[in-house]
């Protein structure tokens, strides 16, 4: 056990799995960096934000492959390799770049298993960073997990802390289905105690980061931390919250969400992705259908507006959910007065 950053935890997960299984390989743009450079320094970058640093040095060019800037071909190649005996972890850098290779993910990889009558096995992990907060503007800030969640055949993982990231990534690498593993870019320097050895966290099992009686908050990725911040503050004001981190949006731990809503009767969902057809909408539908009678107040969603992510800091802050907005939503559901129909 030692303090590790989100970045280190993810790096360690890949390193341990590469040591354990020679079929695990890494590929992506500048995952080593420096190939074809004039200084002769390889492993010059270790990924654009340093997440794969050192893997090339330990495992060499046959297992850590730099790619040209050609997402359609290397993401597709990773899928093809996964279907034929390797276990690739392909880095897409910014998840926004999925626009350049969506066919290989959506029409190819995701459908193999079903379309081929259960014969295919595609142990592929696609890692990508997502999310706003870096002033990276409209093409480098999206939270596209609903896009992947929408596609049957893909599993979608959103770790909310370094500990979660390591266990979930090892699980993803050992999983035999294609997994989209999404890392919030603002979290790479977050630190916490993380075991040194390998461990796994199963998919489809939500984590309750706190339990309370009044309101259930469901949050994803970085939003889990913000939800807990808001819950701390609310606690001091006498409002106790359960915070659910579903960990994976596909599969989704419906039971835990429904159980908690049955207990608290109030639900706030915090989702950083564009609001139409996002996870907040999905979970709202689930709860409206399955737990209608338990609800003491309308469901509240803390979500961005239906706009691209703006560049300027003031606008980006306005765009994003934050602890204050979560706190306000919780208070709104607490203050809801049931009006009896005449």
């Amino acid at each position: 056990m030692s303090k590790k950053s989100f970045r280190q935890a993810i790096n360690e997960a890949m390193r341990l799995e590469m040591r354990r299984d020679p079929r695990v390989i890494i590929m992506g743009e500048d995952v080593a960096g420096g190939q074809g450079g004039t200084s002769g320094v390889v492993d010059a970058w270790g990924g654009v934000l340093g997440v794969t640093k050192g893997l090339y040095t330990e495992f060499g060019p046959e297992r850590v492959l730099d790619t040209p800037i050609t997402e359609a071909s290397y993401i597709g190649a990773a899928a093809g390799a996964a279907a034929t005996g390797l276990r690739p972890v392909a880095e897409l850098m910014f998840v926004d770049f999925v626009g350049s290779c969506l066919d290989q993910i959506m029409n190819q990889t995701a459908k193999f298993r079903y379309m081929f009558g259960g014969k295919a096995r595609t142990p592929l992990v696609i890692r990508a960073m997502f999310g706003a907060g870096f002033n990276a503007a409209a093409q480098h800030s999206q939270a596209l997990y609903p896009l992947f969640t929408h596609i049957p055949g893909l599993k979608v993982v959103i770790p909310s802390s370094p500990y979660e990231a390591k266990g979930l990534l090892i699980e993803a690498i050992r999983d035999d289905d294609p997994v989209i593993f999404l890392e919030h870019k603002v979290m790479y320097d977050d630190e916490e105690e993380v075991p040194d050895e390998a461990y796994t966290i199963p998919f489809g099992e939500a984590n309750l980061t706190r339990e309370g009686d009044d309101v259930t908050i469901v949050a994803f990725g970085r939003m889990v931390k913000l939800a807990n911040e808001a819950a701390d503050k609310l606690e001091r004001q006498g409002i106790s919250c359960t915070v659910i981190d579903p960990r994976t949006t596909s599969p989704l731990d419906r039971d835990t969400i429904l159980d908690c809503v049955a207990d608290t009767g109030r639900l706030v969902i915090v989702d950083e992705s564009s609001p139409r057809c996002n996870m907040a909408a999905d979970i709202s539908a689930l709860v409206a259908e399955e737990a209608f009678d338990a609800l003491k107040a309308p469901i509240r969603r803390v979500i961005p507006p239906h706009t691209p992510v703006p560049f300027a800091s003031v606008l980006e802050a306005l765009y994003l959910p934050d602890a204050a907005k979560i706190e306000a939503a919780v208070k709104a559901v607490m203050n809801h007065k049931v009006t009896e129909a005449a």
Partner: protein
Amino acid sequence: MQIARETLLRSYRAMRTIRDFEERLHVEFATGEIPGFVHLYCGEEASGVGVCANLTDNDTISSTHRGHGHCIAKGVEVSGMMAEIYGKSTGVCRGKGGSMHIADFSRGMLGANGIVGGGPPLMCGAALSHKTLKDGGIAVAFYGDGASNEGTTLESLNLATVWKLPVVFVVEDNGYGEATGSSFAVAGTQKDRAAGFGMPYLECDGSDFFAVYQTAGEAIAHARAGNGPIMLHVHLQRWYGHFEGDAMTYRAAGEVAEAKRDHDCLDLFRKKVTEAGLLEHAELDAIDEAVRDEIESSVVAAKAAPLPEPADLLADVYVRY
């Protein structure tokens, strides 16, 4: 080669403006006041300016993540660009785009682009408009050696040929895509790629404004005359990291220093025009001074400019909704 005095003065000023703009951003970025990612075009000025000196506002260009130089070369106003990079409401995109998304349709500048390979298909479309509307304009897609490998780029070479579109594909080859050398990432040659699509190919030294101006002039004349697309391969060196903050450990010690010493497009320009008696040192010095003032005042204005209003968040997602 005959170049109008006006063109020489304007081109020198544009190159100097780009240099000072970028050098100033390099300094300002280090203070932490500039948000987001910034990719500098220093060392590559003669490419954008040499190409765009052959264009008018009626012609269309697409740029890349390294877009400030193309914007300035195409006539986008500097103070609006600076304000945009600072995320202010007076920015050319009202603070909503930032460095990687500066665009000015009134200048035929269809945007810097955060997506590698995003521009070439768009320029096929712009060329289709020019051709269909018979407005005499052409389209220029600027893209890097790294972007030359993207499927979108290669498909565009094919589409432009099949549709005989007036597009000039300008490969700005600075030898690197991020930290990876093009000797590793680019298979074959740009020349053979053009040939593979049956497309004519020209190349030039991108530190020599005159070489770029002349070669681009030929390429643009080819496209304007209705002969279909053409590729222009410009050999360049970038002086700073891929983005601000990149330590460039993948480059040999002295590589950038040598580029600055021997291949500075501004030095080479000055030497050439003064030796040939085309312009006086004093004229160039006056431009240097005017540009210094312009950049200074653009930074002062950008810092003082108002932030976007909350209502701006929801504006302009659609024309009508």
